[in-house]
């Protein structure tokens, strides 16, 4: 661990210690703010309850990532290949992000039901934008001299895309993907809040209604760990794929 990691750990431990001490000192009831030790206890002892719900949320997020990749990679490529399409679609892309996901969630639940698909779509909607924009930016950032050199070699667009633009844009793509996977939990959880039968978001709503605040915190902890794990995994994948950096 380097120095910055130690500092992060120290900050986290300090906050947790103050929180733990304050809860005991001020005798804060568990249904208002449980102490970190209580949350940890719930996380461990209620793992059998949390795990299936976490599995559902994880599945929604992973499917959302794949769905967004299926749309954003071809779309960014098409927008790069045809600037007129980019100009035509850009306002819609930006507008899609201006609409709060909270506003979309009830509609998606009405259209797609209480099952997995509405949450997958919610996650995909959130992930789709950073990936599309980053990949498009990556394509556009390709050094013009390389593109001209490929032209001189007689390469057509598809060969340039495969041999030059795509590898060039990969670091940008992974930056977008990293942002995407960290915010993907938001989409899935909001979808579950609005209408679901399973998932950590559903569990949080249920626990909140029963004033089981430590269970709400335990679900939040699981979500954070899931987001962090996906971020680390994408980082690992990035280092493997972009071996030349």
């Amino acid at each position, binding site marked *: 661990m380097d120095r910055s990691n130690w500092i992060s750990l120290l900050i986290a431990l300090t906050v947790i210690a103050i929180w733990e001490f304050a809860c005991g000192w001020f005798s804060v009831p568990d249904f208002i703010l449980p102490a970190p030790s209580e949350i940890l206890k719930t996380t461990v002892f209620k793992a059998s309850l949390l795990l299936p719900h976490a599995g559902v949320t994880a599945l929604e997020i992973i499917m959302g990532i794949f769905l967004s990749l299926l749309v954003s990679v071809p779309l960014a490529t098409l927008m790069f290949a045809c600037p007129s399409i980019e100009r035509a679609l850009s306002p819609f892309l930006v507008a899609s992000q201006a609409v709060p996901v909270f506003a979309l969630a009830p509609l998606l639940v009405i259209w797609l039901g209480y099952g997995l698909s509405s949450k997958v779509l919610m996650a995909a909607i959130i992930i789709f934008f950073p990936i599309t924009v980053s990949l498009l930016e990556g394509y556009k950032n390709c050094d013009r001299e390389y593109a001209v050199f490929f032209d001189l070699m007689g390469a057509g667009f598809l060969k340039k895309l495969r041999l030059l633009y795509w590898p060039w844009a990969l670091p940008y793509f992974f930056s977008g993907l990293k942002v995407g996977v960290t915010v993907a939990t938001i989409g899935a959880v909001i979808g579950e809040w609005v209408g679901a039968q399973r998932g950590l978001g559903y569990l949080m709503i249920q626990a909140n209604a029963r004033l089981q605040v430590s269970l709400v915190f335990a679900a939040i902890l699981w979500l954070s760990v899931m987001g962090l794990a996906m971020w680390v995994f994408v980082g690992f994948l990035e280092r493997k794929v972009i071996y*030349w950096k």
Partner: protein
Amino acid sequence: MLSVSGLTKKFEGLTVMEGFDLTVRRGSFTTLIGPSGCGKSTFFDVLTGVFPGDGGRISWLGEDVPDLMGRAAYMQQKDLLLPWLSLIDNAMLPAKIAGAPTSRGSQEKASALFGRLGLHDFENYIPRKVSGGMRQRCALVRTLMFEHELVLLDEPLSSLDAITRRSLQALLLLLQSEFNKTILMITHDIEEALLMSDELLVLTPMPMRVRERFVLEMPKSGRSSNPELLKIKEHVLEELEGDLDGPI
């Protein structure tokens, strides 16, 4: 033979060249030298089709062509190696783009050239792991992997140290005669031009035209101490320095 006649290029009212004429003999090594900013690289850009010309004709092997895109190999100061490909894959890029990536002939040719340029132990290295000189040698192999007879060199050795540059100059000459390429090179280095060229064209400042033409018929070995070439060098340097005397 490459023939350019009446080539004109203007940028927002600035005339880079007007009625520029040039003839390059087949199999020869022709060098263009001129003051900085005279339009040499723009000439190559027009020649290769990066920018359209505003008039004039380009003909290659007796046939009029709009530009030389896809008809000439090109090497410039920047090695333009793809950082994600190994050196050998970078060298094979022209073959890959031409649709013959696994052609045994191409692979053998690339490997043989790697051996001759001292790169045989580095075929599978990525560009980041090797020196600038090695990268430029790899770019030279890639240039020779083009099936095109005409090779355009835009200050290909200017970023290298003196020793590496000297060895690459010798290699370039050796490979030119062996592969029977027609070479048109831009350089700022008068010594390099005199050592390597069959023909040297001295250019004027913008609008660019050929100010003087020297046909260098003496053998290329031992040129560095040739008194006639030393005289040409002094003369060309005086002319180029004279171009700097204008208002700054």
